[in-house]
């Protein structure tokens, strides 16, 4: 496992596209120390490796297929209703290429 330190936490928050205050990183570092210790303890629980990772409480079986036809369609205007920046029927963001 990667070593958890302040540079790693700063990098992680940068990848998640938000900044945190310095004291928040320190709180988080303390939380990580506790969490890693507890997860190490869990790793020592007898027989743990005999269990498959549980993704959902129950199996979700789907035994029906719908026709491949549009059922409910959003109008373009509706889809854009909540966007803060639009232009000519599209979401407008900063230039990506060139």
């Amino acid at each position: 496992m990667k070593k958890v330190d302040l540079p790693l936490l700063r990098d992680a928050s940068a990848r998640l596209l938000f900044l945190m205050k310095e004291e928040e990183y320190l709180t988080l570092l303390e939380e990580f120390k506790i969490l890693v210790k507890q997860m190490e303890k869990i790793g020592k629980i007898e027989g743990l490796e005999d269990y498959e990772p549980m993704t959902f409480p129950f199996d979700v079986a789907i035994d029906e297929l719908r026709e491949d036809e549009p059922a409910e369609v959003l109008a373009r205007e509706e889809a854009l209703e909540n966007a803060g920046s639009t232009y000519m029927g599209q979401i407008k963001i900063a230039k990506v290429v060139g």
Partner: protein
Amino acid sequence: MDILDLSIREMRQALEEGRTTPKELLEKALERAKKDDCNAFESILEKEAYEALEGLGKNSGPLYGIPYLTKDNFSVKGIETVASSNILKGYRPLYDATVTRKLKEAGAILIGQTTMDELAMGGTGMSGHLGYTYNPYDPSHKRMVGGSSSGSAAAMAEAVVPFATGSDTGDSVRRPASLAGLVGVKPTWGRISRYGLFPFAPSLDHVGYFTRYVEDAALLLGVLAGHDPHDMTSSHRPIEDYAAYLDGNIKGKTFVRILDIEESLSDKRLLEALDRLSEELIKRGAVIKKERFGKDLLESLYATYIVISCAEATSNDANLDGIKFGPYYEGKTYDEAMRKARTAGFGELIKRRFVIGSFALMKENQDVLFLRAQRNRAKVVARLNELLALGDALLIPAASGVAPEFEAGGDKLSDEYLIADNHLVLGNFGGLPSISLPLAFENGLPLGVSLTLAPFKEGEMFRLASVIEDITGLRGLSVLNRKEGNL
């Protein structure tokens, strides 16, 4: 007793006999909502509620004319819904959540949206963008009502409406219900559609709700349950007549108490009340068994929950970027715009949780964090099922005691109290039906007890809970209708 303090069945009866009208119910509910001093509301939808009243027509649904509140993470078409987070400011859903739609079709009238921990990721009612939500049982406002469904719990304890929705990923309905003297229900995973509920951790998320009467809880599940083509995880199992289970007969029913949970609690009054309840249950023909869960597994619950829930949340909430919805910030690049939106939009707790989740999902960390947590969840659920095989229901305290003071701490990870106050997550790990309800009072503050059963045993759950309600005498509780109880 005011009409708003009655059960839904009694309100319906009063409506049918002409002793009240939907308009009168609505006016009284709005009047009480406006008196709230616990920061329970994101919005009071007075105009929309009167419009809904006019549109009721001859609707004869089971909730005809009954006012209700919804947690701010259920989509309500055209109404700003933000999950108490600045990242969603201004967001107006384009469709109703299935829960919202079903309640509308049943004739219920939505009168407001309630505050919550931001994006449902908290258990204290301290992290929402409008500030702390207070416990109505403490006029000094020093005590929390719990979270994340904090506003729904507070408003229900103020008896604003007879029911309110909530969501429960760890214990976010049942623990606040305990701290506020209410009935809190989390049915089986898949029993109620989650379509339109803002996701937190889908493998653990459940729709839940608050009532003040067990009979109301049974009635509501009949309205809300059922398969939904919009939610592939919703169950096809038929909806039962849950009210038919409320016959008071518990002869031969077995309740399993878990000793290592009880030993982690320091509140003597709570344990005494639990003992007295057990004695009364035995007098009515029930059997009480006392078992051990395994301390190492119980102590592992919180870390397991944090890793799984944060990992799922990090992934789910990647779409909260200020581009498609929420406040838009200008930037030279699109990621600068997103960074500005996410930095300003998320609270401190949310950011910390996202970093934990993201770290747990990194390839080099997965084995010892995410997959280990998922394996442990499987082991915990296997043990849970062994205990459920010994009886009809687990009988567990619903919280570690009365509502704690805010000063006692927020949602920071801690090495202390690993079992107490984290044990209700068992029901989420297993997707099991679970209910909490008032047990007794300690210095004017409510204590709660919970039941957890095998999947889809909601009818049995309401049967057992109604007998407990009868024993405690704590029906229809609120700060306007205080009772001491029998235990």
